[in-house]
């Protein structure tokens, strides 16, 4: 009896094989038709999408880096340009200032010279006028004194001699 029952553990049963085959084929068909198709397909499309998005992201990153480096380059250039312009402006300003200064100095000198010349001329004129005035005054005084004694000619000669005898200045 033990033997018989133990045999049943390893003896394939015809009915079970029959039903099992049918059941498994139906099971396989149902899963094949309605189960695995959508699942594996969806997973594959998702994987593709993930892969493509990663690739896109990497491309975008590379592009961004390129743009960044370009921007950096452009900025550096702009800075250099700005510095150059500033330097030039400063230089030209300096030049301008020096030019202006020289011009001013010239003008001042000129004005000085003019003023001196004017002063000289005025001085000469004033001296001359003074001399004439003094002469006239002397003549008048002398003429008053010696109106009758002396003629005009003699008196003038006398005064002139006197003036010449006066120390210069």
């Amino acid at each position, binding site marked *: 009896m033990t033997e018989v029952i133990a045999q049943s*553990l390893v003896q394939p049963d015809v009915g079970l094989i029959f039903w099992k085959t049918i059941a498994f084929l139906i099971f396989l068909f149902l899963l094949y038709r309605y189960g695995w198709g959508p699942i594996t397909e969806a997973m594959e499309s998702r994987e593709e999408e993930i892969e493509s998005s990663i690739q896109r992201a990497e491309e975008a990153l590379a592009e961004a880096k390129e743009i960044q480096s370009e921007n950096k380059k452009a900025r550096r250039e702009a800075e250099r340009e700005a510095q150059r312009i500033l330097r030039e402006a400063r230089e030209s300003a300096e030049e301008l200032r020096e030019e202006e200064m020289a011009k001013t100095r010239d003008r001042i000198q000129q004005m000085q010279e003019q003023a001196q010349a004017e002063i000289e001329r005025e001085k000469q004129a004033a001296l001359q006028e003074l001399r004439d005035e003094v002469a006239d005054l002397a003549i008048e005084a002398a003429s008053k004194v010696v109106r009758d004694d002396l003629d005009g000619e003699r008196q003038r000669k006398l005064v002139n001699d006197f003036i010449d005898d006066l120390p210069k200045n």
Partner: protein
Amino acid sequence: MSSLAVGCRLRVAVLVLALLGAGAVGGGSTAHAADDGELTLDSIVNNVIVGHAEDGNYLNFDPFATVELPRIMVARTADGALTVDLYGSTKGLLKDGTYGLVPHSEGEGGHEEVITESSALQEAFASKAHLHGDIVRTSGHVVADLSITRHLIFGLLAMGIVLAIFLVLAQRYKRGVGRTEAPHGVLQNMMEVMVVFIRDEVAKPNIQGEKWRTFLPYLLSAFFFILMANILGLVPYAGAATSNIAVTGVLAVMTFVIGLLYGSKDHYKHMFLGPPDAPWPIRVILVPIELIGTVMRHLALAIRLFANMMGGSLIIFSLIGLVFIMNVLFGEAMAFGTSIISIGFTVFILLLKLLVAFIQAYVFTILSALFIGISVEEHEHEEHADDAHAEAPTSQTSGALSDRLDAVDDAVDDVTEPAPA
């Protein structure tokens, strides 16, 4: 009880007695215990250990109920006509009178009486002997017993669960969850991990080129069915459909048939004509080896899964049965002591079985993929056009395949060694 019968029983219950560690003592006291009637070593081995592991035409919900399953008999009547007899249960089948019961008796072989009269049947129903006896037709004979059995029910249950899970998940994927957005929830993520694993680690590496797409549905179905059936083996009152050789046999035959249907020309040429670069006397030797090898590896595929699952459940039932055996042999006190150890071991074995459930499902699937991969593999055709020297890489390829096969076999042996030990 003759010593021969004891010897037979010892052979069957070798696990039990080995675990007892006192084979000699057990054998000695068996003769006395067997006479006591009610609880004998025989009945423990048959009912507790083997009875739970074997297939049957009933669902055992002891101590609540025993549900008998429909019987379907294809029979040839006395006048030679073929009929199909359908009954709701074994009881109904026996009450009808067309069929008689041949109960398994304690005696040695011998010719058995066929029970058909109702009084004897009532007695058999009471002791549930009708569920373990043979059914014979009173006139004519049974051609095929296509009755629904518990292992079929468990198999259908496993299929139903797998179908429910994946048809629901498929709808989800169709809606776009998992396609355009991230998979959502524990179930979807967990199943997806396994589906992706089967696809990337099992199907793709073993099947040449893009051909894996053709076989992936089969591999996935087989994997999830076996996994679910194995796990059902851990559920109380349920059992593993995969612990039945018929079920694993059907699965292995499916792998075999797929290999035959989709086999490449190169594979058939190699199988029936031998390696192309070998001299003909060697081919004569190699062809039968190749043929036998092909059949044997599919047979081994069935037996590996069956033996692992059956071994696991036998160990568990044996550990539980040990408590009753101790009761018979040494009395109640010893049985209480044993129950503590038994239950501890049972929990350990159950955990091991959970591991084995996954491992065996994986092993069956990867070997199926490998066998299918071998069948559908095509060699470079330019090499065949060239001379014999150019064919060296071809044989290398098949050499690599058999290496891979050996490696997988080794891995399987390593992994599964603890379970049936």
